[in-house]
C-alpha cells in the first residue's frame, strides 16, 4: 500500500471526524461528538446533527492538520464519506471536502462509510486482508460482509429491523439507563449475571440475517410483568442478560459466515464492536476455531475520519472523483 498523505472526513451521522493518515499510519484523528446534543432526544436527530457538523468541520480540519504537523499543501488527496448516512449530515462533509480538494488542486476520493468501517482494522493490524468475514454493527447499520479482498465485497446478511446499536439504545432508554444505550448497557452489565434472564435469541431463518424486534418486545413484556409482580431482578442482571442475547446473535451469525465462506479471519467495525462483552466473546470464539480476529480499538470502531482516509489509500492512484459528485445516502457495499 502506498504512503499517500490523506485527509479523511466523516460526517454521515452524529460524529464529525477528521483525520490525517499516511498509508495506514494515523498522524492525527480528531472528533467532535454530538452525544450530548442528541441525548435529550434519546436518538440521533438529523437536523441537530447537520447543525453541529457545519460548525465543527472547519475547526476540526484545522486541528487535524495541526496535530499531524501537516500543511494542507502537502496532502495527496482529500477523502470523504459519500454515504450511506443522513443526507443533510453527509452534505456538510462532502461540500467541504470537494471545495477543499478543488482549492488545493488535489484529488477528491469519495468513500463508502461501510468500507471505512470494514478497513478500520487495518490501522492497527497490518496482517489484515481478505478473505475475511466482517461484522459491522452500530446504531445505524448491522451487516455481515464477506471481504474477498479489499474492494471485493459481498453482503451476506443484515438486520431485518433495528440495527444492533438501535436495539441497545431503545432498551437502555426503556430501562432508564440513558443514551447512548450501548455504552450504558455495557457499563451496567459489568457486575451482572448474563444468565439471570433468558431472552430469546432471535435467529431468523436466513443464516446471516438478524432481527432485534422480538428481543425488544420480550424485554418490555418481561420487565412489565416482573414489575407488576414486584420481582424485578437487579438492573445489572437484566442489562447483562440483554447484552448477552444481542452478543450471542452477532457472534453466531458471524461464525455462520466463517463456516460458509471458509474465511480464516474475522474483522469488526461500528460502535457496537466497542462493546466489551462482544469483543470478549468474538475473541474466545475465534480462538476456539483457530481464526484470526482483527478488531480496531474502540476509538476506531465508532465513526471517525481515520477509517475514511485509510479506506481511500487504495483509490489514490485512480485520480479522484469528478467535481460534480453528490452525496449518496443510500449507498451500499457491492
Amino acid at each position, binding site marked *: 500500500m502506498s504512503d499517500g498523505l490523506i485527509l479523511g472526513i466523516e460526517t454521515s451521522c452524529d460524529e464529525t471526524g477528521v483525520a490525517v493518515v499516511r498509508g495506514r499510519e494515523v498522524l492525527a484523528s480528531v472528533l467532535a461528538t454530538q452525544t450530548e446534543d442528541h441525548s435529550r432526544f434519546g436518538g440521533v436527530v438529523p437536523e441537530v446533527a447537520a*447543525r453541529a457538523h457545519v460548525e465543527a468541520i472547519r475547526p476540526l480540519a484545522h486541528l487535524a492538520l495541526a496535530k499531524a504537523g501537516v500543511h494542507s499543501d502537502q496532502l495527496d488527496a482529500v477523502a470523504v464519506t459519500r454515504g450511506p448516512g443522513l443526507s443533510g449530515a453527509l452534505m456538510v*462533509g462532502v*461540500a467541504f471536502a*470537494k*471545495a477543499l480538494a478543488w482549492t488545493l488542486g488535489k484529488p477528491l476520493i469519495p468513500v463508502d462509510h461501510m468500507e471505512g468501517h470494514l478497513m478500520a482494522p487495518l490501522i492497527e493490524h497490518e496482517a489484515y486482508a481478505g478473505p475475511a468475514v466482517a461484522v459491522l454493527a452500530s446504531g445505524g447499520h448491522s451487516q455481515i460482509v464477506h471481504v474477498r479482498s479489499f474492494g471485493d465485497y459481498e453482503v451476506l446478511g443484515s438486520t431485518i429491523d433495528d440495527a444492533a446499536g438501535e436495539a441497545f439504545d431503545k432498551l437502555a432508554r*426503556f*430501562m432508564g439507563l440513558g443514551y447512548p444505550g450501548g455504552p450504558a448497557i455495557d457499563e451496567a452489565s459489568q457486575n451482572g449475571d448474563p444468565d439471570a434472564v433468558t431472552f430469546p435469541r432471535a435467529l431468523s431463518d436466513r443464516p446471516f440475517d438478524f432481527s432485534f424486534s422480538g428481543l*425488544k418486545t420480550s424485554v418490555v413484556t418481561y420487565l412489565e410483568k416482573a414489575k407488576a409482580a414486584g420481582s424485578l431482578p437487579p438492573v445489572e442482571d437484566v442489562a447483562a442478560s440483554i447484552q448477552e442475547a444481542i452478543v450471542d446473535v452477532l457472534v453466531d451469525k458471524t461464525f455462520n459466515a466463517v463456516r460458509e465462506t471458509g474465511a480464516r479471519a474475522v474483522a469488526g467495525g461500528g460502535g457496537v464492536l466497542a462493546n466489551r462483552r462482544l469483543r470478549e466473546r468474538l475473541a474466545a470464539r475465534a480462538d476456539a476455531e483457530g481464526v484470526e480476529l482483527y478488531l480496531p480499538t474502540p476509538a476506531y470502531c465508532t465513526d471517525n475520519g481515520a477509517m475514511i482516509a485509510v479506506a481511500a489509500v487504495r483509490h489514490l492512484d485512480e485520480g479522484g472523483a469528478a467535481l460534480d459528485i453528490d452525496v449518496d445516502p443510500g449507498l451500499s457495499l457491492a
Partner: protein
Amino acid sequence: MKILAIETATPASSVAIGTGTTLEAMSLQVNRRGHVGFLVPAIDFCFRQAGWAPTDVDVVAVDIGPGPFTGIRAGISTAQAIAAAIGAPLVTVGSLTALALRAATGRRRIWPVVDVRRGQVATCPYRPVPGGVVRDGMPEVVTPEEFAALVDSGGDDALVVGDWQVLPESVLRGLHRVKTGRPRYPSADVLLEIAALKAGADEFAGPEDVRPLYLREPDAQINWTDIREEGVWPGATS
C-alpha cells in the same frame, strides 16, 4: 479586491466572482436539491472563465439565509473550505438583503420573501434609500396570514419580492397598496456588491457568525412506535 460569492439560500444556487464593481463570471442553476453537485463545478467554471487561481481570492462571501438549511449548509461548508485553504476572510450576507437590494422600487417599502417550507416564509422589511436599502426590522419566519398582517400594518405602499408565488393567492389578493415584483431568488452577483462594502468596512465574519440563520429550532421528534416512553425501572431514571 477579488471576491468569490456563493449563494445557496433558495432553490437557486449561484456562484459569482468579481471585484464588487465588476462581475467577472457567474454561474447559476435552479434545482432545489442540487446545491452540492453544482457548487464546485460552477466555481471551477467561473475561475476558468476569468483566468483566476483560487489563491487570487481576497474575500469569500456566502449567503447564510434565511432559507432551506440544507442548501445553506452546503454553501457555508464550501465557503469555509475555500477560505481555510487559501487563508482568506469570510463575509456573510443575508438572503433577504440580497433580494431587497435587487428590488426595483421607487419609494415603496420592500418585503422580500424566502420560502422556508412547511407553510412558512422568512421576511423582513427594507426601506429604499439613495444607493441601496436599509433594513427596517429583524428577519422572522411567519405564516402567509401573518405575513399579510405585517405588510398591512405598515400602511405604506409596499413591494413584495422574492418567492411570493408560494403565498396563497387569497393572501396576495387581500393586500392593498401592494405590488409584487422581481427578483424571485437572490443571486451571487448581488452578494459581490454587498461583500465589497462589508469588506471595505472591515465587517468580516468571526467563526461564530458563519452559520445558517436558522430562525427556528430543529424538529426533534423521535418516533417511538414500538417502545413505551416511560422507563419501568424503579430508581434507575438517572
